[in-house]
């Protein structure tokens, strides 16, 4: 079920009313939310619910056993193998097979080919396996006691606002929410409404229309001018931000109305002055996960510069692969790893670069944004050759006065929104207002959706991951 469908809106209103009606009976409330979550997920392909159930039961059982076993490491490795095994089979098997087949074409005979597996990628598998893994690892580390109530844990894995595309809420955060006060006060309702309205507006008004500019550039780059290509790349940079952060805003808003507070997932990433800061603002729950469950266990920055750079690179390469089984995602992750390593190695020591004046700040923001855009080319392109074609167009800079208008307008408007947002935190301000600001902002968002949502809206980009 897609957030941007009438089906979801009706579904959510029913769940919201039921949740409110059952608030005096927490177990019944959780059962209803779990059933709703499975219904929500099963609307896509019901038989992949078996995967969710299997993953839930395995990690639940392992976590219960962990404190009592003399060899907990073996059990946590089993949990990792089961979860990553699912990912490997469903997400990476065909990519590995295609890579193998490509290799044997060069060095051996086609007789060595392996037939690809006919499997559909289960929606949200990357998200819920990471959430589930965080549970067993935290229990293993002793930072979270195992949860005896299967209902609580099953809901932590499958809670519908997050299961398909995050945010990646760690089990300990979600369980703490379930244990805490789930009352929703008036301020929460207003903030949730602002998030939901702006989330839909970001998706329908901005992302889906920016896609109309970006898609042709990445789908058919041949013969396009420098300006057309640049416009398409900028459009994609803002499309993916509006698409994914819009989804996240809706998820956070819906969860909040149900009494569950999700962590923030975006914080105006294009206002970042460095790649490191970008990753503190972009898909923050994934960054945290990679930091806590990959980068730090690899040694983080505790074993000298060379090891730190290697850890950064490995973390980002795996972060890239987490998004999808394609070389383009490997390059995307590799570029970010290289950026982070270079930033740490070189730029941190350059005085003028780090100067605290408006010019240097603007320069840092612009350079960071363009480095991110360069990586987005690989993220969005169909394949590496497609990315190269886009880059080839950009390698022949020739801007005509007539071209500048569109590029400048798009870049200026979206950039200004990011900068203003980062400084003013307008969503929080609007939610805090009881007067015309709240009514006006929500009305503008609704009317903008009525007018500017394309006739056919596309699924959220991160559903494919």
């Amino acid at each position, binding site marked *: 079920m897609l957030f941007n469908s*009438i089906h979801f809106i009706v579904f959510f209103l029913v769940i919201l009313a039921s949740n409110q009606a059952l608030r005096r009976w927490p177990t019944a409330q959780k059962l209803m939310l779990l059933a709703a979550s499975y219904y929500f997920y099963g609307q896509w392909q019901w038989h992949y619910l078996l995967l969710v159930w299997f993953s839930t039961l395995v990690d639940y059982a392992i976590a219960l056993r962990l404190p009592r076993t003399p060899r907990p490491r073996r059990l946590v490795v089993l949990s990792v193998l089961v979860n990553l095994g699912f990912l490997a089979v469903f997400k990476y098997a065909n990519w590995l097979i295609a890579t193998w087949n490509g290799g044997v074409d060069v060095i051996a005979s086609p007789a060595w080919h392996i037939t690809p597996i006919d499997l559909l990628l289960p929606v949200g598998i990357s998200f819920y396996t990471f959430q589930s893994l965080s549970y067993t690892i935290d229990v293993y580390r002793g930072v979270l006691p195992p949860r005896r109530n299967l209902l609580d844990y099953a809901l932590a894995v499958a809670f519908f606002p997050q299961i398909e595309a995050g945010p990646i809420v760690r089990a300990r955060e979600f369980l703490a929410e379930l244990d805490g006060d789930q009352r929703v006060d*008036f301020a929460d*309702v*207003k903030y949730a*409404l602002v998030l939901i*309205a702006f989330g839909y507006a970001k998706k329908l008004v901005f992302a889906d229309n920016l896609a109309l500019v970006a898609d042709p550039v990445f789908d058919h780059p041949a013969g396009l001018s420098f300006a057309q290509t640049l416009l398409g790349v900028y459009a994609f940079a803002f499309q993916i931000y509006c698409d994914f952060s819009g989804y996240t805003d809706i998820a956070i808003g819906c969860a909040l109305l149900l009494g569950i507070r999700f962590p923030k997932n975006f914080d105006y990433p294009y206002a970042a002055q460095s790649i490191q800061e970008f990753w503190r603002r972009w898909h923050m729950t994934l960054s945290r996960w990679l930091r806590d469950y990959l980068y730090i266990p690899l040694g983080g920055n505790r074993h000298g510069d060379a090891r730190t750079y290697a850890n950064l690179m490995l973390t980002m390469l795996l972060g890239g692969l987490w998004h999808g089984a394609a070389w383009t995602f490997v390059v995307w992750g590799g570029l970010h790893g290289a950026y982070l390593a270079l930033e740490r190695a070189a730029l941190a020591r350059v005085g003028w670069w780090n100067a605290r004046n408006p010019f240097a700040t603007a320069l840092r923001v612009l350079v960071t944004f363009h480095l991110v855009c360069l990586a987005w080319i690989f993220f969005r392109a169909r394949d590496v050759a497609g990315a190269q074609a886009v880059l080839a167009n950009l390698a022949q800079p020739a801007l005509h006065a007539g071209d500048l208008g569109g590029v400048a307008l798009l870049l200026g408007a979206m950039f200004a929104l990011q900068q203003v947002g980062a400084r003013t935190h307008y969503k929080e301000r609007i939610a805090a207002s*009881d007067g015309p600001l*709240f*009514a*006006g*902002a*929500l*009305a503008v968002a*609704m*009317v903008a959706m*009525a*007018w*500017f*949502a394309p*006739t056919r809206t596309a699924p959220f980009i991160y559903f494919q991951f």
Partner: protein
Amino acid sequence: MLRRLLVLSAPFALVLAIEALFAAGAWEPLAEPNSHAGTSIRLKRALRDPAVGRIDYVTLGSSRPEYGIDHALLAAEAARRGRTHADLTMPGTHWTSVGVLARWLEREHPEVRGGIVALSVQDLAFAYNGYYELGILQPFRRADDLPWIAARIPFAIHDVASYGVVSALFAWRDDVRAFAAAPAQRRESIAWRDAHADAHHVLFDNPESHGDMCAWGVDSLAACDRLEATSGDGEAALRRQCRELRTRASEAPDFSTGASMATPPEFMSGTRDLVREQLSDMHWPAPPVVILMPMPRIWNEVLGRGQHEWAVAILKPLADAGRIRLVDATDFFDGDADGGCGAFFDFYHSNAQGRERFSRWLLPQLAVMLYQGDAGTPASAHEDPPKP
């Protein structure tokens, strides 16, 4: 508690207020003059122009009668009788927009004595002409027209284009989007419209048309084969029409089979019932004259089997009952030595020559059917005089 409810409902109340403003026509001054809605607005303004005064007779219909009937001739004929006859035809007009415009006329010009409803055989296949018809009728509709419109144009929850049935905000959606995409261009076109807002010209003159189709022919789809072998910009519009014609030909339903069934398929019976109800409910003193406009022979390959007969079958009982006067001129140019090519400037529309020939033939009939009130018996109302 009440205050909280007010705060939470305020955004929705604001949206409803904007919706009401749009329904009341607040966007009309900014609407694109060259769009379907813009044409309706121009017409509405002309009809409200104090200089125009009383309207006695009207011609309603699509672009076929817009180009195919000599409106200046009809206006002169009416003037000779001390009456006025206004041309209210607009491109894209179909049964639903004809109905909404007729309802608007009842409210704003109750003095109208009668009129022509000029469409074509093709227009009797369905009760509406696609969701863009909502743009045509929007400037003329009122809140209480909703049930009438919704009975003809289906609202579909999964199709945003249909939301204009129930909401003015959505009805103006495409126009607002176009405005946002090119505001400067809109400013220029509005300025041009305002400088050329001559109500007399809008209501009583003919549009310009140039050329004929004799280089290509209009008697079969072979003309499209010839056109599609060209690549010049001059023929681009004709090639587009050819694509439309081929699509229509491939999707045309079999009306013969449907009509022979005890209960025709829903789309046929629904259209039949709605058209009959609409024409029966027109409250003009003189029964409306329904004209099936001339179509080039190429349409014989495009229309569904039995479509012409079905169209006449819908209207004939009304004509027999004296509720309408029917003029079936579909094959008016079919006997021409040149296959009719000299009478059309594209595959749909008559040129000035075709317009004059058809109007000269039509005028004596109108003198009987329209201007003299109830002239002729129901049986004779469907007898066409010999063609020139």
